[in-house]
């Protein structure tokens, strides 16, 4: 990671230039040579961005995935779907605002949509627990997914959560059971299921709605068994070594494509979806529609068998003594 110091400088410079650009635009027509100066700044910003994002570090990707302006479920609901009707409640205990469930149309076709519901601002995030569901969230998801099955509707799930909510009440009401049951529901759903990891794929809390015939992952999304900070704290008793941990965990879309965990990486605008949400949504819509069409074409029994086999193959191990920890890839 010899380029790391450069990167830091580049990042700081990029930030300064972006601020200058904003100031200049705000100042407006009084500034002499406005257009020329704007043009120069824009070019410099673009060059820096390209340099920084040609081969982003895993930690850069983590930051993009967690970027406060990164498009959330609400943005994708608006941009990808029409005719959205939210369905509330698990029919057992409550309605979890951290989990969205509903009916909608994708490319004109009726589907069931399930996704982690992060908020746009702090107030909404407090209400939605930053997209960290309680058991009733996962049970609502399972309830609505069973409805998809009953009606023969395909399901689309959008994954973006730091984790399942770690709370006393969540444990009391069986967070583990709710996650396991949701995974089982998806594993056995006769309907086609396409998953898109759009932001943070936080461990079991993400996987609970992340099992499908196809799993797509946006270019700067992450998917990890543990947050890099937690990993660093265990490994080196030093949460500050999160950047190293982010590298070690292989949590980027490219890593997971190579490990066979995701089926396709959905491109994003350079530097992250938040820089051009509309284009990011177009890329995602195209991929979702294409994969849904493919898996819908399969007979249900074959689709279920393929889904089973897909997860059945995941993992790497050896049966030969001499390979013991011979190293992966």
């Amino acid at each position, binding site marked *: 990671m010899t380029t790391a110091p450069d990167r830091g400088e580049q990042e700081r410079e990029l930030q300064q230039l972006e601020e200058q650009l904003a100031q200049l635009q705000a100042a407006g027509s009084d500034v002499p040579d406005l257009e020329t100066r704007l043009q120069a700044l824009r070019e410099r910003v673009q060059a820096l961005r390209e340099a920084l994002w040609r081969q982003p570090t895993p930690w850069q990707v983590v930051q993009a995935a967690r970027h406060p302006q990164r498009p959330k479920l609400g943005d994708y609901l608006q941009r990808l779907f029409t005719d959205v009707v939210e369905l509330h409640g698990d029919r057992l205990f409550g309605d979890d605002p951290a989990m969205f469930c509903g009916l909608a149309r994708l490319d004109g076709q009726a589907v069931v949509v399930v996704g982690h519901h992060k908020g746009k601002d702090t107030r909404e995030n407090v209400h939605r627990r930053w997209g960290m569901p309680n058991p009733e969230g996962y049970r609502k998801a399972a309830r609505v997914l069973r409805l998809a099955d009953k009606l023969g509707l395909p399901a689309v799930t959008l994954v973006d959560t730091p*984790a*399942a*909510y*770690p*709370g*006393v009440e*969540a*444990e*009391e*009401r*069986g*967070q*583990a*059971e709710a996650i*396991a*049951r949701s*995974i*089982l529901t998806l*594993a*056995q759903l006769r309907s086609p299921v396409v998953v898109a990891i759009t932001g943070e*794929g936080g*461990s*079991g809390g993400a*996987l*609970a709605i992340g099992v499908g015939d196809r799993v797509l992952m946006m270019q700067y999304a992450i*998917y*990890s*068994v*543990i947050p890099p900070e*937690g*990993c660093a*704290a*265990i*490994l080196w008793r030093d949460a500050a070594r999160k950047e*190293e941990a982010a590298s*070690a*965990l*292989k*949590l980027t879309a490219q890593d*997971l494509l190579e*490990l066979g*965990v995701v089926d396709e990486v959905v491109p994003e605008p350079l530097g992250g979806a938040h820089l051009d949400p509309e284009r990011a949504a177009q890329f995602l819509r195209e991929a979702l529609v294409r994969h849904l069409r493919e898996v819908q074409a399969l007979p249900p029994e074959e689709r279920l068998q393929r*889904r*089973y086999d897909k*997860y*059945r193959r*995941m*993992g*790497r*191990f*050896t*049966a030969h*003594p001499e*390979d*013991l*920890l*011979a*190293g*992966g*890839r």
Partner: protein
Amino acid sequence: MLNWLRRPKYESVERRDIPAGLWAKCPRCGQLVYRKELERNLKVCPKCGYHHRLSGPERLRLLVDEGTFEEWDAELASVDPLGFPEYADRYRHAVQRTGRREAVLTGRGRIEGVEAAVAVLDFAFLGGSMGSVVGEKVARTFERAVELRLPVVTCSASGGARMQEGVLSLMQLAKTVAAVGRLHTAGLPFVSVLCDPTTGGVTASFAMLGDVHVAEPGALIGFAGARVIEQTIRQKLPEGFQTAEFLLRRGLVDLIVPRSELKSTLARLLRLMGAGGEVAVDHRA
């Protein structure tokens, strides 16, 4: 999973669990117990009833009729798929210390005469964590049980998914759950025994999908780690939080069984559920 911050606590308890010498100090009541007496008492403290942790092989000896166990897939081992820092060393150390290649023992055997497929997690091997090998062996256990028309008994003791295999560990949740689903569809019984501790990704997958959940007294069972929850709620956790008794009250565990009665209870359950030669009327289409 998220309960990493509790790991050091486990390990220190673990060390106290297997004290050297003739006498053992009980980690709950603090009293000294003659080691041989503790062994005779199935590692349950005769003074306070504390259930000391059992290794995988100890658990197997406790539950499976002598001479009936046929192990499956003992040769499977990790390949350190991510080239993760320190993993190779830790793994080799675990292999040396336990004489086994992974954190789960699977196979078929008889429980008071009732034939069953069995998977026993070994907390002594990297905290019973589930990576590719554990997931694979557990999934194969459920698949073979379907082929052989056997019931399944799992004994869980795990800190969760194995961090060092990254998302591949997380995928073992999906893999094992899908395999459990096939057993359920086949109408075969699954008894999940929850031992101290069962947390994280193992709880959030096969261990919580049993037809019947049996827990050992006092066992720690939960999803998120205590530290993480305390940090979130900024309060001390209630007394007895995430114990077997807590889960029983919360409707997540069917019964708590002391170790001395575990084997006979499992046998009775399996027979009632149609295993062991008693043929239930199969009324599925």
